[in-house]
């Protein structure tokens, strides 16, 4: 396919796997954070907002280094998880998932938060008077009405994860077949003589996947909106 070498194919496959897992893992936490930030009223909300957005403004290397400190084999969380649950992040593809999830998180939360805020709270009140517990109100009113933004958030997170480089390479290094994602592979190609062709092929794939995801999300969001408008 496209004359990709086995090494390049491995990087593409790994990147897709990492990005999908990162998106899936971020989703529940992202939705919760978006809901809390959109609807909650509590002390320290702006601090929470700051923490959620931190990976967006910090240099990715810093985020990667913090992950290494916390989730590395000797890090407080990393050691605990390895001992208790046999979950290891350091220099594994799971670590790449974690790095990508953290980096994509603020983009996901932002899109979801905006769409939840756009849901008319008077509809949620109406659902409450009809006997719906707040959890049911969220599931049957808020969630379906904010679907376009939730899709957009997922796609943004996926695209970010596909392209994440700095935090990933800092946290889990650049091991072919384990943590060498698409951007890492491109970087490696640019560092060796005669790697230009490989870098270009992967760049094309990168563009195609990102554009594809974006178009798909546009399509899905538009369909969801049309369904709402028709209703």
């Amino acid at each position, binding site marked *: 396919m496209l004359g990709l070498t086995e090494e390049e194919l491995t990087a593409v496959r790994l990147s897709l796997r990492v990005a999908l897992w990162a998106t899936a893992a971020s989703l529940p936490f992202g939705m919760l954070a978006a809901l809390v930030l959109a609807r909650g009223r509590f002390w320290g909300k702006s601090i929470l907002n700051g923490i959620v957005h931190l990976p967006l403004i910090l240099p990715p290397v810093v985020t990667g280094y913090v992950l290494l400190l916390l989730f590395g084999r000797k890090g407080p969380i990393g050691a605990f998880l390895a001992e208790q649950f046999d979950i290891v992040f350091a220099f594994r593809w799971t670590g790449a998932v974690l790095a990508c999830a953290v980096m994509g998180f603020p983009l996901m939360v932002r899109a979801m938060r905006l769409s939840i805020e756009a849901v*008319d709270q008077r*509809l949620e009140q*109406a659902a409450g*008077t*009809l006997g719906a517990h*707040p959890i*049911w109100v969220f599931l*049957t009113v808020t969630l379906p009405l904010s679907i376009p933004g939730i899709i957009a958030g997922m796609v943004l997170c996926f695209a970010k994860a596909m392209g994440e480089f700095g935090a990933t390479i800092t946290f889990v290094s650049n091991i072919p077949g384990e943590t060498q994602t698409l951007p890492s592979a491109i970087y490696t190609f640019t560092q060796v003589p005669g790697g230009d062709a490989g870098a270009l092929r992967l760049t094309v794939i990168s563009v195609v996947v990102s554009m594809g995801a974006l178009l798909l999300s546009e399509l899905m969001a538009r369909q969801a909106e049309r369904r709402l408008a028709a*209703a």
Partner: protein
Amino acid sequence: MTLVVDVRHRLGAFSLDVSFESEGRLTALFGRSGSGKTSIVNLVAGLMRPDEGRIAVDGTVLVDTGRGIAVPRHRRRIGYVFQEGRLFPHLSVRRNLLYGRWFSTVREKRIAVDQVVELLGLGHLLARGPAALSGGEKQRVAIGRALLSDPRLLLMDEPLASLDEQRKAEILPYIERLRDEMGIPVLYVSHAIAEVARLASTVVLLAEGRVLAVGAPADVLSGSEIVPIVGPGEVGAVLDARVAALDVSFGLTSLETRAGPLTVPRVAAGIGSAVRVFIRASDVMLARQRPEGISALNVLPARVVALAEESRTVVDVALDCGGQRLLARITRRSAMAMQLAPGTPLFAIIKSVALEDGGRPQRG
């Protein structure tokens, strides 16, 4: 059903301090905008929590700040019909109607879906989405949705306010049927006197967050407290009447009232049924002698009870027609020319056409 509301609540510069009890089938909260009507309804529904006070429906305490009770809104079983409908845009009419049904914990549903669909005339709308409905249809669906959640009390916050006259006329009969047939008490917010006169069994008169009067519509809506609320042009009297005869060829109905026989246009009620008529003071003319050759169909003998000078030009004359209170608004010059004084016997003349919207069916 007994509704007990006794609450105090501050909202910025506005303070609400109301206490009333009602056993009526349709209790109307009547007052100008900003008098606290919607706040009371929101407190009953649980959308707001009062600073202090107690709310109970049929002995079930919903809020009692003294005992630290505040039932969350989804467990109150209070149906709420909002001014703007608030239908769920992502659900069809059918699923909007059934929404509250999923959460209703009552095993034996008192209200059948078919019954509500029939009552509100929703059969042909079920498959549609809310966006494809007219304003009146939306409100009917909203009423149905609230009914089907099996509420112990139905709140209606100016459900007709966003509709034009024609749509209002379309919905009013449905509200009357629901009041008479569903057995669910209604708390109804309105600032339209004709609507309240027609629908209410009990009226709570509100101004600036305080209760001015509570009682039967005939008493409250004809009382003097009403004047600053409805404005001088809208005062009048409420007459309880019974349909005596129908004149199909002219499209008229004869009513029996304490004041005497009254002829009104096309009342949609059978002979013998009770209706309520609101007669605006400015629709009543006065004459010292019984007029002859006059187009007005209603000439009632009356006696002056009191005169109230509303301005340099206008006088409101309170009349007694065989025990029925009536109000007439005439110029001060006429009052002087006719030498009106308490006790003066005269005739009140009411044009039937003026009653076009006044007499509508009302059972019980």
